[in-house]
């Protein structure tokens, strides 16, 4: 089986792996890199559980050919913390009861982070739009939207 070398930045760390030719980024992150935070929900781009950030923008890792991240910056939920300190979004989700089974949570957090990095004080409609590609079967979405609103304004905006 052909393996492709791929060098990229993973949650701020320079990483290089060999990934199977034709494999997707989700499998590469989970199985080769060992980052289990993005999840498989559908493999067809309809659920958002696999959402990661590539160069700051949300992408569906299950639909991303692994070798296309060569030289790029990939961020996952595993990298949200700063040392022991949780990201404001993580704290807001915890306090807001914004997860039950927890399976959609990594994807939701990445979609929310992409929003707040670009737009630190979104409207509620903008939050809903930002997570419109992420399905949740447990919470009914309101606690998630509330938590993102609560976390907004506490995240320093990213200079584009």
């Amino acid at each position: 089986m052909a393996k492709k070398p791929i060098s990229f930045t993973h949650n701020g760390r320079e990483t290089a792996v060999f990934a199977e030719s034709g494999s997707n980024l989700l499998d590469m992150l989970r199985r080769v890199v060992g980052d289990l935070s993005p999840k498989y929900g559908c493999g067809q781009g309809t659920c958002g559980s696999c959402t990661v950030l590539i160069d700051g923008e949300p992408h569906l890792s299950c639909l991303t050919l692994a070798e296309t991240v060569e030289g790029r910056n990939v961020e996952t939920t595993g990298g949200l913390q700063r040392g022991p300190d949780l990201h404001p979004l993580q704290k807001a989700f915890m306090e807001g009861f914004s997860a039950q089974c927890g399976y959609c949570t990594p994807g939701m957090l990445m979609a929310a982070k992409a929003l707040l990095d670009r737009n630190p004080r979104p409207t509620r409609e903008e939050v809903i739009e930002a997570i419109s590609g992420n399905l949740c079967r447990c919470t009914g979405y309101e606690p998630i939207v509330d938590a993102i609103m609560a976390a907004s304004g506490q995240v320093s905006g990213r200079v584009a």
Partner: protein
Amino acid sequence: MMTVDTYDTLAEANRAMQDRSRFLGGGTLLMRAVNYGDQSFQRIVRVRDASMHEIRSEGGRILLGAGVTMSRIIASPDVAFLAPVARLIGGPAIRNMATVGGNLFADHPYGDMTVALLALNGRARMADGSEMDLEDLLNRRGSMRSIVSAVTVDRPTGDEFRFKKVSRTKPKGVALMSIAAWLPRPGGRLSGVRVAYGAMGPTPIRVRAVEQALEGGNLDASTVDAAARVAAEGLNLPDDALASAWYRREVAPVHLKRLLLGEGRR
């Protein structure tokens, strides 16, 4: 076993396309097929050609590179008339990935951008430089091997161009029907009307019966009524999990009327 070959220019990639190869746009459709073990191809062809990502004017029309994503369309003032269409496709992540070129080859029920491009007199430019009407491409796309490098469309003014996507879930949902309408009224009367549907046939289609009903009339209730009466005429409507053919036939005139009389305006 899947192989992936990457080329620097589109011309090289085009020459490299063979049987059982597929060209990678944004991956939203191709990787889905890979994930589900699609047996019809075992080679992916990629390209690093920056010309695929251009948006520019060309002789009064707009050219969009086949690699332009929906997000890029939303962010580009030159194609502001397409932003409402792009916004209705997928969620934010999909929009960062899905491309104009990929949308041309999207199977039912996808292809909303193509519906819009079809109504905008879209023409496909191929990697070898030749051109093709979009309608032509859609009829032949099942057996094509050459790569699309760009699409050119007319540039609408005012509210000539309208688009509506009908889906059960919002804000993100697959269309059970989408409608694009190009309604030039140079002297007050409709002239050169083009109407296209998505998810109402095996590919996005021009709806000639509706176009003929509108052509030459004013954009008013009686003309629109005439068009609504033939909203689904001659169409081979799909029957699927999203909606039955009966349902599509019933709602097509309703949505068409709303679009033509102003509700689809953005």
